């Protein structure tokens, strides 16, 4: 079986990449999705707020996904559902299984990795206590409630104030559960401000910052969750414990790009993002293997996923059409002074026709700061930011003409605080 482009993952990233590749002149594309339906996690995100940037309107997750699914079908792009990729090798042979075709070996001209991410678990953050049932990751609970039609609990405590945690606080409330509190380890929320207002404040759900779960009690099902205040090194402070009587603990404690396939293929990963090291084309360390969406780095808005994935699709098409330039010595992006990471990691300016988009996250909350782009000591561009937070991804666009004059080998993004 041969395809010009094989896209692994039929969530928002994979769909956008496939459609964009098709629109850039590649016909022979296959999207492989492990779940029963296209659309990925968007299908369980039945709240609205998606698409403000891409469509200039507010859509629900399934609505947002539907637009891409329809387009995919209109364009006649092939897809396989309920199909799991077991392996990708350096020669871009994709091995997959499903119940209909059995075992598949697919030769791909280019591969786009769009496997998304998974949730961190209770185990990963070592929450002590009993192994009672009733501890769910927020995403699993969301799937049960929104897609399968079952409630997972009546009295709830949520750990983690990322967007999923906030959204689930409202969702559980609307389904008749009592959400006692959203507990956040950090002194600030990891979620969007609008979600704090619309999901917690509107329903009088307290947000307890600088708190964590220190014990889970209950023999069979969760009976109590004990939380405590933490000090500035995030260690629980004895004597500050509060006990909530509840049957459910939802965890929204971070997302991890799912790169098991990338790892076994030998693709170089960035230890900070947990995703592949990519260049301006979203190409990984294996030539012709591209990556986009949450498998590269966790995004806060699907709109940014779409934008990034379109780029991956466009460049994958160019690769297949042999139009992609390979620089001997690409420039590298480097974050300074609180810029935690930048995607892409490498830039071959020859491939940039209009602009370079840098996506980055900072390591703390900052007010009245500047993101300064530098070529060595020379300042190329400066972007003022009233508010920067680790939970919010920042995007900076650099026109191609600015890049052409770079003298050094690094594109540096530095965080500078304004004088008070």
């Amino acid at each position, binding site marked *: 079986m041969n395809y010009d482009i094989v896209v692994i993952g039929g969530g928002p990233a994979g769909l956008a990449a496939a459609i964009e590749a098709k629109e850039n002149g590649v016909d022979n594309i296959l999207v492989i999705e*492990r779940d029963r339906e296209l659309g990925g996690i968007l299908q369980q995100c039945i709240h609205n707020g998606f698409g403000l940037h891409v469509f200039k309107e507010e859509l629900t997750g399934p609505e947002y996904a539907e637009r891409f699914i329809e387009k995919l079908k209109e364009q006649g792009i092939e897809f396989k559902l309920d199909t799991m990729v077991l392996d990708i090798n350096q020669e871009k042979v994709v091995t997959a299984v499903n119940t209909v075709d059995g075992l598949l070996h697919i030769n791909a001209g280019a591969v786009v990795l769009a496997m998304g991410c*998974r949730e961190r678990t209770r185990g990963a953050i070592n929450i002590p206590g009993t192994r009672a049932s009733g501890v769910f990751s927020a995403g699993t609970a969301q799937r049960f409630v929104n897609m399968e039609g079952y409630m997972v609990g009546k009295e709830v405590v949520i750990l983690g104030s990322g967007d999923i945690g906030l959204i689930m606080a409202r969702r559980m409330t609307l389904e008749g559960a009592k959400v006692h509190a959203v507990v956040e380890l950090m002194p600030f929320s990891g979620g969007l401000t609008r979600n704090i207002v619309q999901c917690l404040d509107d329903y009088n759900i307290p947000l307890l910052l600088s708190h964590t779960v220190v014990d889970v009690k209950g023999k069979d099902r969760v009976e109590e969750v004990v939380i405590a205040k933490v000090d500035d090194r995030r260690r629980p402070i004895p004597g500050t414990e509060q006990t909530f009587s509840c049957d459910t603990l939802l965890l929204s404690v971070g997302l991890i790009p799912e790169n098991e396939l990338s790892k076994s293929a030998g693709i170089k990963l960035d230890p900070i993002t947990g995703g592949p090291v990519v260049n301006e084309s979203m190409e990984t360390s294996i030539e012709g293997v591209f990556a986009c969406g949450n498998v590269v780095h966790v995004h806060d808005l699907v709109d940014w996923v779409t934008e990034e994935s379109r780029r991956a699709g466009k460049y994958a098409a160019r690769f297949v059409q042999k139009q992609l330039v390979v620089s001997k010595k690409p420039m590298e992006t480097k974050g300074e002074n609180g810029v935690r990471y930048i995607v892409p990691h490498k830039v071959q300016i020859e491939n940039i026709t209009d602009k370079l988009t840098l996506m980055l996250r900072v390591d703390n909350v900052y007010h009245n700061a500047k993101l300064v782009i530098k070529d060595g000591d020379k300042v190329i561009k400066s972007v003022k930011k009233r508010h920067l937070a680790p939970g919010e991804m920042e995007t900076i666009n650099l026109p191609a003409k600015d890049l052409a004059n770079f003298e050094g080998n690094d594109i540096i993004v530095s965080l500078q605080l304004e004088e008070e």
Partner: protein
Amino acid sequence: MYDVTIIGAGVVGCAIARELAKFNIKTIIVDKENDVANGTTKANSAIVHAGYDALPGTLKASTNVLGNALYEDLCKELDVPFKRIGSFVVATEESDIEVLKELKEQGEINGVPNLEIISKEEVRKMEPNLSEDIIAALYAPTAGIVGPWELAIALAENAAENGVEILLNSPVTSINKVDSGYVVVAGEKEISTRYIMNCAGLFADKINDMVNEPFFEILPNRGEYNLFDKSVGDFVNTVVFQTPSKDGKGVVVLPTVHGNFLIGPTAEKVEDPNDLKTTMNGLNFLREKAHKVIPGFPFNAVITSFTGLRAKVKHGDFIIEESKNSKGFINVAAIDSPGLTAAPAIAKMAVEILCKSSGGFETNESFNPNRKPSIHFIDLSDNEKAELIKKDPRFGRIICRCENITEGEIVDIVNRKAGATNLDAVKRRARAGGGRCQGGFCGPRVMEILAKELQTDITSIVKDSKGSYILTGSTKSSSVEVN
């Protein structure tokens, strides 16, 4: 009328059940939990010890060394993962070397083969990730690792295939002596039986006391563990103990049979034989102690933590004997470490005692020692995979993404004897949900398969124990029929 009633379906009870299946007798094994292997067996270090720890002359010493020797064949017959990877006891202080020498000598008296004290250089050659501070080690090549609950489940399944009955969800509440033997009340059932094997683990004292004078007390001892991702599963390839001190054997670091990494246990006396909680102090302690032997270990690759309880007694040795006042009542109790290793030997010994008391049983000529092997889809060749999916398409559907477990495998383990009836039971048998996402993705799917195969409603599927419900009902909107 049953010939033998085994109380407790842990690894020891199940090993005895399988031994008894070799005779033409009617045997039943009862347990209060809703799965076999659900007590001490499901949470321990999974080590097949070489046998140098126990004092010469003790039951622990003899059953450990014999049990270890029996593992190879037993695990082959039962298709249970077992690897003889060897163990180290590492010394960091000069004074530790004396202890290593004592252990070596003790092991040799116990009959442990090929014990050797090796130099720092040899240690580091075999395990380059171990700490520079290690100055020598006692190397025991016969030590190994096993899937503990898999062994118990396989023993139960094989026993059941050979005619042993299994009764779960049935706590024993009373035992009465009658002329013909005993009447055991287990849950809803009254079991008339000629003989009893008390393998009740943490509750063995309570079971004994239902019939006999109390002569031992089980002192539960808690041990907490951390389990790590497969990405760090080969950090060391040997079972690494620290030199024992007065506080016990200390924290062990080792790979698991499935390629994960395990660190544990703590040791803490507790009152409650159901106290399976983990604690922040315990988990911090593990990290601190493990750090001494594997300083570069990425502790952030942890995927879960758990606690096991060991059934200790004051005098320290196993109790494997017929009750002095109650003929045909055999206590197999106080089986703490190295109970898992010793289980195959304990079973043989307990059955010998029973045969002596009863005058012996007729051999079951049709006994089949081999359990039908499980299919591990991901380990098959491409051709085998393709063929299998052609035969049964359910092997073409991956349910557990982390461990690559197919629907076919889950259906199989639900429908076997002593099959899985809940989420954790599936995890123990097929590892679905045991990977890095801990069931985040596959949990709902596994519940669907369970509900379908067991012909029950998905809301009645539990995580583990009877009361560990997962879903509390339907959502508001789902009461409206869609399409």
